[in-house]
């Protein structure tokens, strides 16, 4: 609860700073943009947080995002209908998670190393299967290999999942709503079912969980599958939302944003801690900071430092609050 209060305070303070100091940030359209970015990072944060709760780590998230975005484009370009390509790419994500999970649980390889290798493998795969992909590349009527008939289904998907209208104007924060729905489902499993108890138990004390009869390996594999599937979903949303995706850059460093969001949201890297609401709140931090620096015309050179320092400050405040409350108990 203390950690939740800490992150609620941080998010509220950042929103207050943004809205009070930057009048143009109060524009509804701008706030919807920020919310959608929060949804984008939030979806991968949910997966990263689950892995962290069971005491693992997934460094391949960003590459899976990029690879899935490219795969989504390439699959449609090869003639697969967008509505069929979506579950296919989700299946790709699930397979990646299954491979990660099996390597970690059956071969007893370290999660850090397995997913670090995955980071290179899936980035490389993205570059092998396509360079730059975009909606236009898939549907361009001037290109005989393209599929102009997919234009409407792609726009429908974009409208439903991202919230952009036919012309690309954001009319509702679809990704944020999707994040809330996913967080509700995940929160139900995490806090209301035996699965959640297994995951917390594994993160707290793996051996104790095993002796208590929990199939630790199976649960770990399930969590990695969920994480990579969510990363695949985020990749497809990225494809739908952005004008184009470069295999080299799409989703690059997102694993760090996801891990940061999870930790800010109350997940301990030691495992066994974290809540669904915390994950959502943790993911809300960075887009607000990003919007603040964008709208205030800060010098390009200083932006990464400002973002990093703000997040570090948030982490320090969160930790101090937690310690103070622990001392009071």
């Amino acid at each position, binding site marked *: 609860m203390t950690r939740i209060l800490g992150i609620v305070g941080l998010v509220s303070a950042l*929103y207050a700073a943004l*809205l009070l100091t930057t*009048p*143009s*940030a*109060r*524009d*509804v*359209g*701008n*706030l*919807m*943009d920020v*919310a959608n*970015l929060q949804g984008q990072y939030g979806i991968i944060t949910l997966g990263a947080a689950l892995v962290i709760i069971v005491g693992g780590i997934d460094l391949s998230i960003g590459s899976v995002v990029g690879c899935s975005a490219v795969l989504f484009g390439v699959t449609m370009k090869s003639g697969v209908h967008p509505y069929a390509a979506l579950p296919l790419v989700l299946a790709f994500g699930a397979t990646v998670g299954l491979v990660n999970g099996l390597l970690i649980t059956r071969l007893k390889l370290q999660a850090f190393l397995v997913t670090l290798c995955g980071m290179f493998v899936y980035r490389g795969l993205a570059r092998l299967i396509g*360079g*730059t992909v*975009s*909606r*236009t*590349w898939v549907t*361009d009527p001037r290109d005989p290999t393209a599929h102009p008939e997919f234009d409407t289904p792609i726009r429908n998907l974009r409208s439903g999942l991202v919230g952009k209208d036919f*012309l*690309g*104007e*954001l009319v509702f*924060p679809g990704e*944020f709503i999707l994040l*809330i729905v996913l*967080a*509700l489902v995940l*929160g*139900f499993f995490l*806090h*209301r079912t035996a699965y959640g108890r297994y995951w917390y138990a594994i993160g707290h004390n793996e051996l104790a969980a095993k002796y208590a009869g929990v199939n630790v390996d199976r649960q770990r594999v399930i969590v990695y599958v969920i994480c990579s599937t969510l990363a695949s979903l985020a990749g497809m949303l*990225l494809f739908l939302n*952005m*004008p*184009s*995706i*470069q295999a*080299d*850059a*799409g989703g*690059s460093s997102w694993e760090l944003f996801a891990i940061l969001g999870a930790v800010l949201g109350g997940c301990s890297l030691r495992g066994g801690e974290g*809540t*669904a*609401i915390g994950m*959502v*709140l943790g993911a*809300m931090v960075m887009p607000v900071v990003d*919007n603040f620096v*964008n*709208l205030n*015309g800060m*010098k*390009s*050179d200083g932006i*990464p430092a400002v973002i990093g320092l703000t997040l570090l400050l948030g982490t320090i405040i969160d930790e101090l609050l937690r310690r103070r409350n622990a001392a009071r108990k």
Partner: protein
Amino acid sequence: MALRLVFLAFTSLALAGCGGGNSATNAPNVAGGERPKIAVVTNCTDPFWDLCEAGANKAAKDHNVDLLFRQPEKLDAAIQMPIIEAWVKQGVNGIAVSVIDPKGQEEDLTRIAKKVSLITMDNDAAESTGRLCYVGVDNREAGRAVGRLVKKVLPNGGTIAMFIGNNSSANAIDRSGGVLDELKTPDADGKPGTHPVKKDVTGKYYGKYFLVDGEAKTDGGPGEKAVTNARDVLGRLDGVTDICMIGLYAYNPPAILEAARAKSLVGKIKIVGFDENLETLKSIAAGEIEGTVVQDPFNYGYKSVEILAAVARGDKSKLLGKGQTPYQVITKDGGPDQTINGLLIKFPKAVDFEKKIRDDLASVKK
């Protein structure tokens, strides 16, 4: 927990709805004494864009403008577009963009051009987007100038390799296309084949020149990959003479030079570049790079802000027509001005041009 999540959702939606700010529809012209707010976004972070930023800052002072200038951290339209969208929502009076993926960004830029005065610089978008004008050289013509430099340094033909950030942006396509246009002959216009000495190296023939791998090698933007690409090609061409390495983005010539240094090939291979990276200019003066074709990014920044400020004040006379920005060719010894395809092209000495660049940078505190 579910209740708390529902509460969070409502809180967020309430936050989203609390704004009563201005809508950015059809950014109005500013009143007489008001300062227009102009935004400039580049395609990545690079010293090339520092020059552009210096020019934009100078114009902002000269024309009484509030300037927002961003160099996105990566050459990626997915990073660039959210910056532009945020500025549109903010209600800026004009935006200048170095477009990364003209095809992919076409739809979004068309929508944005209906709300804000939009110009392109360095890298153009389709005129159908409704952008007001393009500030930049004709990259195809500038590419041809690079091709002429290659012909000058390897008059009897040889092996060439081209390096660039990507193969999809308009400037990349035009620059590499311009080089090959200049080199090709009717009987050797991209004819596939293997290297005359290194049979394991495949490529294409353009006139007397063999292009390694048949296309420009891409690196995704400034970084280590630009050096490793060049190093790998030099490794594959070990023992081959008459090599010319062509770097078509600003960071490519220094990256090629770095790779050549690592293989002790400086002076043994020819390097021809594009853009006015200070390292490139110093190396031309030192005789390590043969020459470069430059665009004057300081002027891109200055002109972009000047044009958008004028448009915001209701004056459209500053808008540029097609092909009004000439490139320049920098070599160690320079040369007299020439009129090429209707453009007056200058050939300054590298030391003189480097001094100009340093003066430009010093003229405005970054």
